[in-house]
């Protein structure tokens, strides 16, 4: 592990996991916030990656979580490790007495874990935010400030995502080392489809599910009408609650043209938010309200939700802002998990129905 000796009045940041998200998203965002935040420590299980990424920002490096959490120069911890490690690492960061924690989504794999994390956060007084970047986007925040009663009156909500390969935008943001290897899934296997849809919900849709939930007061009564896989990776999921119709669309393909939008409609008002692509620092989303013959536009603002996350963390760490309610984080997570579970159940039901509908082959017959 290397060391650092300089001292500045900025808040020190430690990052667990130095993969493409850290390299292409967090470090460029932090580079724009050098007056309030400084990267002090990079941890990765791959020592060479940790060293290389840390060298870019003059930070210490290690392969040990304990080393990072024990580093007194680190006041804010960002958890960018694989999903299954999030819960334990968030709890460890809280127990280490840090000032604030950013956990990449999802911050837990089930509601019990989420409740446990929230309890530790409350006990230690360490605020936690989840890296659902769109909830920190100034375009979204402006929409929330100007929504009037739309969160209560909306009846139809749409999330639509078309994404080029991640590498296209990672390469616009930085110079990546150690990209994870790709694979060619067997989509003839229903279990692979089920896994792909679950991954789509917990890895992609989850960016906007907190937004959708704000417009869905009866979110606990979510029902999957139909869920379909889009090749090579994506989904079409039709949902409803007693008062809302919700459509989720996503396609990750080889196009150059990204589109990421959120829409909500009531009888007399509509909101559309067009988000900028992930990875690049392309400013905020633009929120457009339509009300009959008139439209009102908010944005673009000069920074995106990733930078917004870090600004929020700095404000939390200095006590300038109060942390979000623990129940909000738990509800956001359980909403996503409920959709993922219901999607899997609907696929199982569909598969069972198809098998039941197939004519049985007489014993001894040859196909």
């Amino acid at each position, binding site marked *: 592990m290397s060391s650092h000796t300089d001292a500045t009045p900025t808040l020190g940041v430690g990052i667990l996991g130095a993969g493409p998200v850290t390299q292409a998203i967090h470090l460029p965002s932090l580079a724009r916030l050098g007056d309030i935040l400084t990267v002090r420590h990079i941890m990765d299980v791959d020592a060479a990656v940790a060293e290389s990424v840390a060298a870019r920002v003059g930070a210490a490096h290690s392969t040990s979580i304990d080393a990072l959490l024990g580093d007194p120069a680190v006041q804010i911890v960002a958890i960018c490790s694989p999903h299954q490690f999030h819960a334990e690492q968030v709890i460890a960061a809280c127990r280490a007495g840090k000032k604030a924690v950013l956990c990449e989504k999802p911050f837990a794999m089930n509601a019990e874990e989420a409740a446990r994390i929230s309890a530790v956060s409350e006990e230690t007084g360490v605020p936690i935010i989840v890296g659902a970047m769109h909830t920190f986007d100034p375009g979204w925040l402006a929409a929330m400030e100007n929504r009037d009663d739309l969160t209560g009156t909306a009846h139809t909500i749409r999330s639509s995502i078309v994404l080029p390969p991640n590498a296209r935008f990672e390469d616009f943001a930085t110079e990546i080392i150690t990209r994870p290897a790709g694979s060619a899934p067997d989509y003839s296997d229903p279990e692979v489809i089920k896994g792909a849809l679950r991954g789509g919900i917990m890895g992609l849709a989850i960016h906007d599910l907190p937004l959708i939930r704000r417009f869905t007061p009866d979110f606990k009564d979510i029902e999957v009408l139909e869920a*379909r896989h889009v090749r090579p990776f994506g989904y079409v999921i039709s949902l409803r609650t007693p008062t809302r119709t919700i*459509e989720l669309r996503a396609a990750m393909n080889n196009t150059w043209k990204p589109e990421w939008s959120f829409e909500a409609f009531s009888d007399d008002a509509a909101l559309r938010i067009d988000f900028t692509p992930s990875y690049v620092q392309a400013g905020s989303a633009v929120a457009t309200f339509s009300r009959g013959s008139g439209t009102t536009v908010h944005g673009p603002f000069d920074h995106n939700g990733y930078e917004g996350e870090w600004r929020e963390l700095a404000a939390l760490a200095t006590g300038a802002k109060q942390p979000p309610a623990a129940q909000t984080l738990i509800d956001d997570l359980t909403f996503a998990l409920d959709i993922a579970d219901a999607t899997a159940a609907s696929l199982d039901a569909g598969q069972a129905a198809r098998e039941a509908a197939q004519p049985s082959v007489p014993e001894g017959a040859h196909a």
Partner: protein
Amino acid sequence: MSSQYSVRATPEAREAGAVALAVASLPESFGPAVGENPADVVVIAGQPGWTGEAATAVTAGARGVVVVNPAAENTDSLQAAAQQAGAAVVLDQRWASNPAIPAAEDAVRSMVGRAAILDSVATAPVGTDTGDLLADHLAAVVRVTGPLGKLRVLARGPHGYTSTAVLANGAPVALQGIASGARPAGVTITLLTDDGGVSVALPEPHAAWPAMVKVTGPQGELLLPTIYESAHRATWRRLKEHLDAGTKPSDLQRFAATSESLATLT
């Protein structure tokens, strides 16, 4: 100067099809029928039973029939009657008759075999009958994609509907209807392939605002030429061309595909 065809419309059709405006915008080609003289062109509204009404008109000697917003109905008898009488029957459909549709159809058909997903949304004012909205919506989609498979309605209510289908290659089709007065009514159709796609935005037919058809590929995005002509006027212009040339439009045959799709929903 070309010959002018006389026109007579039922009151319902006159309003629904903005007939006076369309005819006035083609003053060399069409004009109102005078007195009780038989009209060259009869305009009827497409409520249930319209095929019989149209057949009666062609049997009585109308050379052309315009049907405004036709409801799903079997057109076999009408096709036979029109064929026998040598009459031209054109359909003035809310979105499917937009003059940008032929170019949109070409663009979509050239990519639909490689489609990954087709997503389409129709919006209409609050109070619109969702069955009528779905019929207008499907007519536009089927016009550019061809017949859809496994079409069904997942949910329907006063705020709209959610429908599902598949393209010929098995790619998912998602059709959503939304009742809201927040935005101008219209239809969007988005076809995505692995490296691009086609997006189509069709406006309401009561003004000459243009549809937007964009084709996206590896080399960039192309906005097809905009056509500042309403669906109503485009319908009348097509009729004029057929009447002048003595050719027969394929509207009824095409409409059979939409009716077939709708029939699977009932």
